[in-house]
């Protein structure tokens, strides 16, 4: 399983300090989350496309991820334009069509896509452990960091345990179908995965205790802030200020 598809590349964005990129992504998310005016939303999407272009992300993979996000948003387009009313309404279902809902759906679509694009271009272009370290350097809550970090680490272990179980099934001639035996088998596999991961969590914790763990997670410094990071943040701030001013004049 490889989740860090975008982390390895040679674009200018890949070379930036993860702390600079995280700060930039955070500021952009805040600005966009609070934005109301339509031109600002479209401009946000433009910024998203621009950063993805600069990061030179592989297009097929990019499209796959956007599709996943937009499939979810498509549900909103179906649900938002309807309102529950007292009268029989449309086809006697007690629903009334409300075009204002479509505006909402469009706004959500624009915001989400812009955010996902910027996050992919800025955050996903650093290996995940570097993002983790950047957050640790910022003194983010240690418990949350541990949670995030172990979740990510053990996703791989779980995935491999699942494969082992799956191989074990296949090696003994199991082929899934839609019948009770398949459901029962998969129920056993998921139960076993749960039990195994619990056991493993226990042993990992013990192994950490054996190496003197007492709640503090030490981070080895390996970031070096470069002049290009300062330049990037300066340009990014100007861009965001421009967007902010645009929003102000329109409001």
């Amino acid at each position, binding site marked *: 399983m490889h989740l860090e598809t975008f982390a390895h590349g040679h674009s200018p964005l890949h070379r930036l300090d993860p702390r600079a990129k995280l700060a930039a992504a955070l500021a952009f998310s805040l600005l966009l989350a609070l934005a109301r005016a339509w031109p600002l939303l479209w401009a946000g999407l433009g910024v998203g496309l621009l950063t993805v272009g600069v990061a030179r992300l592989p297009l097929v993979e990019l499209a796959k991820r956007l599709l996943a996000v937009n499939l979810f948003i498509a549900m909103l387009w179906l649900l938002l334009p309807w309102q529950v009313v007292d009268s029989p309404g449309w086809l006697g279902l007690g629903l009334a069509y409300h075009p204002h809902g479509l505006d909402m759906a469009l706004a959500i679509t624009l915001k989400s896509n812009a955010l996902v694009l910027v996050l992919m271009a800025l955050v996903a272009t650093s290996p995940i452990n570097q993002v*983790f370290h950047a957050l640790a350097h910022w003194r983010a809550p240690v418990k949350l960091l541990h949670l995030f970090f172990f979740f990510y680490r053990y996703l791989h*272990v779980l995935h491999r345990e699942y494969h082992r179980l799956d191989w074990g099934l296949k090696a003994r001639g199991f082929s899934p179908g839609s019948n009770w035996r398949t459901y029962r088998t998969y129920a056993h596999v998921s139960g076993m995965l749960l039990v195994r991961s619990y056991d493993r969590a226990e042993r*990992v914790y*013990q192994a950490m205790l*054996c*190496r*003197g763990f007492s709640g503090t997670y030490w981070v080895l410094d390996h970031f070096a802030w470069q002049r290009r990071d300062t330049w990037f943040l300066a340009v990014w701030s100007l861009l965001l200020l421009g967007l902010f001013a645009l929003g102000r004049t329109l409001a």
Partner: protein
Amino acid sequence: MELLRLTGIHFAYPQRPPIFQGLDFSLEQGERIGILGPNGAGKSTLFLLVMGLLKPQKGEVWALGAARKREKEFQEVRTSLGFCFQDPDDQLFSPTVLEDVAFGPLNQGRDKYQVRLLVADTLQKLGLGGFEDRVTYHLSGGEKRLVSLATVLAMDPQVLLLDEPTAGLDPDTEARLEQVLANSGKSWAIISHDHGFLRRNCTRLLRLQAGRLLPAS
């Protein structure tokens, strides 16, 4: 000088028949003990009891100069008792090899710069030079085992407690491991099914069977 001593240990996992009923075990400075025994005899359990990860229902654990009973008392000595788990996936949890090997020494309060040098040195000795930035979960089985040994050796413990350290190693890697152990000058107890390996690397062999440790040859 005695480093470890277990006396009259009684232990049973919940709802299971007892594994130990009055087990005694001791390890002297300079001693190298090999432990053999059938599957499920309690070899790994013995190490877990020494580390204080499991607590005996009866009996006394004495380690590095004092009796150890409470969690805090065990915490003082854990990094001096280099315990290496049977499954490297239990041992390795950091994204990169560097961070994982550095984990123990940093917990011991060593200086970050020193730790980097120490990690490089330890990896070099195990023939893993330049592995610092490798991702732990993408290593091969044998590499994982060597890295998990490195995480223990980097703490410079007084005793090594190794649970099947040679499982899955090819003959060349196993020979390198033997050399690293011999050069370390440490005392150890090693669990293994590899009789030849234990005879070459240990001064005394014990067989754990039916809850008792008996001399073996």
